[in-house]
Every structure is written in structure tokens, then in C-alpha cells.
């Protein structure tokens, strides 16, 4: 099933003389249970693509369908609610609220989205998989960078979103850690049936991907050959 799709999306930054055409007539869809990798060099439009797919940026032209809903026609409030229930962001910068213990980071979400979150048992499973079960009573400042990233991932997974979006999740990691994160993202797709979309310039993630796209100068092309 299509968890997310972009139809004929183009995006232009600025106006008049300072125009940047970041995306051109882009069509894309991602299925539940797959890891989709969008590879491209710096400045190719990856972040623009991801912010549009995540509903944070309205494309100049074209449509975005998230979890079956035409995102651009929703009210701001409905957009917030749809992002909260359907999209989990895995970001390079985790920015956990420093004054909330790990368990309270989840509580914050449950105060806003009262239903449809992971059950206690499911959350325990996710925490286990991410190896952060023992950290529930700690503040972010007491965690290592990797632990913070995994807490941020758990927080993104807690509302049980159908779609996971990750922007350069391995930017500053050594090969060992790249494998850990890549495996984690693949597990989210294959074991938890999420549609996972990763934009990156890091070819080390190719081995975990089900679908591979190339983006260059704002043009997206699907690569037929999967698995290196």
C-alpha cells in the first residue's frame, strides 16, 4: 500500500533574480514495509524533497498524499495532527528536551496524542530493540550521542507512524555505527511494516535498501538494480 506519494512536485526557492529550482516534476511513492533510499550529492535537493514529503514545506506546484490524505488541502491543525500520527522524523540533530527524562519524552507525546500510540508492551519491545530500556529515568544530558539518537528514534516511533523520514542519519558516523543505524532502519521497514524513506549522500546505506533513487539537480530517478 502507498503510505506516501508525491505527484508532479516542483519547488522553487526565492523569486525573480534569486530563483533556485530545487525540485523538478518529481514523482515518488513509498510502500509500507520498504526502505527507500534517495541518494544524491550535496545541494541536489534531498532536504527539500524530505521536508515536502514530511509536510513541513508546501511545494510550489504538485501534490502530496500522506496516509491517503491530500496533505496540502488540510488545515494547519489537521496537518499537525496528521504529522503526529503518521510521520516519524529521524533527524541528525536529536534535540531532546533537556529537562524531560527519557520516559517523560514519551509522556509529552501521549499528552497531545491520546490514542493510537504504542502500547506499553510494544514500547518496551521498541526500547529493547534500541537498547535504551535502562535509560528511561535518565535525562538527555546523561546519555551518549548515540543513545540520544536512539531515544529520539523511539520518540518518533511512539505515536506508531506509518512513515519514517530520515535526513542524513549517518552523516557523522563511522562504518560500524552506519551498519547499526542501517539495520535499525531496515528493521523498522521489515519488522514493523513502516514506509521508511532515507535521503543521504552516504552509499554505505545501499545494502539495506529495498528501493533506490538517485537525485541530481532536483531530478529524481528510480534505479532498477537493487542490492550491491
Amino acid at each position, binding site marked *: 500500500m502507498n503510505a506516501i506519494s508525491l505527484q508532479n512536485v516542483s519547488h522553487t526557492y526565492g523569486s525573480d533574480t534569486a530563483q533556485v529550482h530545487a525540485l523538478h516534476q518529481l514523482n515518488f511513492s513509498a510502500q509500507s514495509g520498504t526502505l527507500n533510499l534517495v541518494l544524491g550529492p550535496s545541494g541536489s535537493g534531498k*532536504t527539500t524533497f*524530505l*521536508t515536502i514529503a*514530511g509536510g*513541513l*514545506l508546501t511545494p510550489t506546484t504538485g501534490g502530496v498524499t500522506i496516509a491517503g490524505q491530500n496533505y496540502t488541502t488540510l488545515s494547519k*491543525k489537521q*496537518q*499537525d*495532527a*496528521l*504529522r*503526529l*500520527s503518521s*510521520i*516519524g*522524523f529521524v*533527524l*541528525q*540533530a*536529536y*534535540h*531532546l*528536551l*533537556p*529537562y*524531560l527524562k527519557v520516559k*517523560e519524552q514519551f*509522556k*509529552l*507525546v501521549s*499528552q*497531545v*496524542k491520546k490514542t493510537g500510540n504504542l502500547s506499553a508492551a510494544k514500547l518496551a519491545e521498541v526500547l529493547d530493540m534500541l537498547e535504551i530500556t535502562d535509560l528511561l529515568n535518565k*535525562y538527555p544530558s546523561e546519555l551518549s550521542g548515540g543513545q540520544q539518537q536512539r531515544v*529520539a528514534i523511539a*520518540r*518518533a516511533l511512539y*505515536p506508531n507512524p506509518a512513515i519514517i523520514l530520515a*535526513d*542524513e542519519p549517518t*552523516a557523522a558516523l563511522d562504518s560500524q555505527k552506519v551498519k547499526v543505524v542501517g539495520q535499525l532502519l531496515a528493521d523498522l521497514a521489515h519488522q514493523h511494516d513502516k514506509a521508511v524513506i532515507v535521503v543521504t549522500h552516504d552509499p554505505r546505506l545501499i545494502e539495506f535498501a529495498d528501493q533506490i533513487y538517485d537525485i541530481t539537480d532536483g531530478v529524481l530517478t528510480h534505479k532498477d538494480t537493487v542490492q550491491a
Partner: protein
Amino acid sequence: MFLALKEIKKEKLRSGAIITMIVLICYLIFILTSLSLGLARQNTAAIKSWHVQRFALNSNANTDMRQSFLNDDQLGQLTKNEAVLGQGSVVAKAAGKEKLSAVFVGLKSNQFIAKNLQLTSGHPVRHAHEIVVDDSFQDKGYHLGSHLRLNDQKQRYTIVGFTKNAKLNIAPIVYGQLSTWKTMRGFEHGPSASAIVSKKASYRAQTAGITTYSTKQIINKLPGYQAQNTTFILMIAFLMVISLIIIAVFLYILTMQKMPNYAVLRAQGIPSKVLVGATISQSVLLVIFGLAIGSLLTAGTAFAMPAAVPMAFDVPMLAAVGLGLVLMALLGSLVPVRSVLRVDPISVIGG
């Protein structure tokens, strides 16, 4: 609320610093308010205790009882709702005691002010050389039966009674007979009173050269009274503004530091209103904590304050001032709230 409480709890040092400032400001405001009220009461306590609505003074007296003299013809016909009084500044002296600046108020024993005077001890004035004085004379070592002299008179007066709240323009009152006032002033054949007062708002003096004022007009014309009130109001208003600025600046800094965190939450779909609510409740909570501690300090001060300090702790008034501070907190939080509403989730995506 959840976020605000957690943050205050975790960031004890920062929260403590803001709360400390709010405590100090709030304490200062409370003390100034009490002082202002206390001084105002010392200006007006006696007038209030008479329960009069109207004052009739000589038209040329510029609404100032001290400058007003009325002759017998001007007094005209008075009903039982009216009374006459003679007012004059005196210095009270007694051997071995420090001199006291006071106000002499001469009354007619058969009129309502003298009759209604509430004594805390002793008996009313019955003779020309008897006086009833403000309680504060007791703090200076006077007691029932004490003798004192007024100004440079040879005559000695005997304190036969004490009364409380007998303060006019911050000076304690010496109540005596109106005839004593005339003698003291040397007005044997001149004016016979300073003013006519009436319990009735409808009272109008009918005789020539005399003007009727409301009690409020008289109080506002008491020397220094308005200037003093204005000064206090200005100081309190400034402190309010300072507290507003402190709250706004502190909260703004705290909020700006959280912007990336908020941006992530916004990206994830946490509504702005949750973050706005956290900002506002943080501000209000900090002020309420500050107010609570400031109130305790003020209560302690009220308890420990010597009676001589003219302070009046009026709970409804202080509560109103406290509410003003909470309003300042709400206003102050609007500055960071603006930034929270503008937080751009895209700013944390990418790298």
C-alpha cells in the same frame, strides 16, 4: 503545565534566579504599597473617623482647613447633623519629654464629633483645660492625668482620655474644646471656627463667603497628600514595568535556547499551542512562586514591624497588586510566545 513544571524542576538554578528576582521585586512592591497605604491612613484617619461627608470652609481658604476662619455670622443655623471645629498646629511640651508636633482640634461637646469620639481609655473633655489625645502620645510616655503645655502658653492641659486613629496630615491630634482653640489663637472677638462639617452629602452652607466641599476634595488638598500618593503610585508602576521587563527578557532567553527543541517537536506535529501554553504557564508559575515567597516575607515583616512605622497591610489591596504582577507575567510571556509561534520546523531538518 507539564512542560513548565518539569523545566522549573530540572533547571533549579535558572528558575531559582528568576524567582529570587521576582521575590525581591514583589516584596518591594508589597512594602511600598503598605507604606503608601499606611501614610495615606495617617493623613486621613481622623477625618474618616468623623464620618462626615461635607466640609464648609471660608471661600478664600483655598480648600485648606488650616487657612480657613469662619465668624459667628457665617456659621449660620446648624442642625444636629452639623458640627463646627477649630483646627490649628501646636507643639506639645512637657517637662522631661521630647516636644511633639500635633494638631489641635477644638470641638463643641454637645455636637456629634465630640459625642461620637471613641475613647480607648479615660473620659471625654468636660472642661476648658482637658484634652483627649491620640494613642501615639502613649508611646512618648504620656498617660492619663499627664500634663502638657501647648505652644508658648502658660496654661497646662490635662490628658483625660486617649483615642485611636486621631491622625491628621500625619500629625497626632489633641482634641479640646472649641473655646480653648479660640483662646489659644487669641481670637476672643474674632472668628469662632475653622470649618463646619456635616454628615449629610446634601448639606450646603448658605451664608456669604463660605464654600462647601466634599470630604474627598478636602483630603486631596491635604498638604503633600497627593504628591506623596503620586510618588508611591509611580514607584509601584515602575516596579511593575521592571518586573515585566525582567520576566520578558528572562523568558525570552530561556525560550530562544529551546528553539531547536521546539522546532523538532513542531516537525513531529506537536501543536504550537502546547509550546505556547508551556511558555505562558512557565511565566505564570515563576511569578506565583515568587509571589508566594514574597507574601511570606511581607507577612513576616508585618509581624516584626514596630508600630511606629506607618505601614498598613491590607490583604485585598496586596492581592490586587499580586494580581497585577501575574498580569505582568502574562504580558511578559507574550514576547517569547511570538517567537514560539514563528519557530520553523524546517530549521532542524537537513545538515
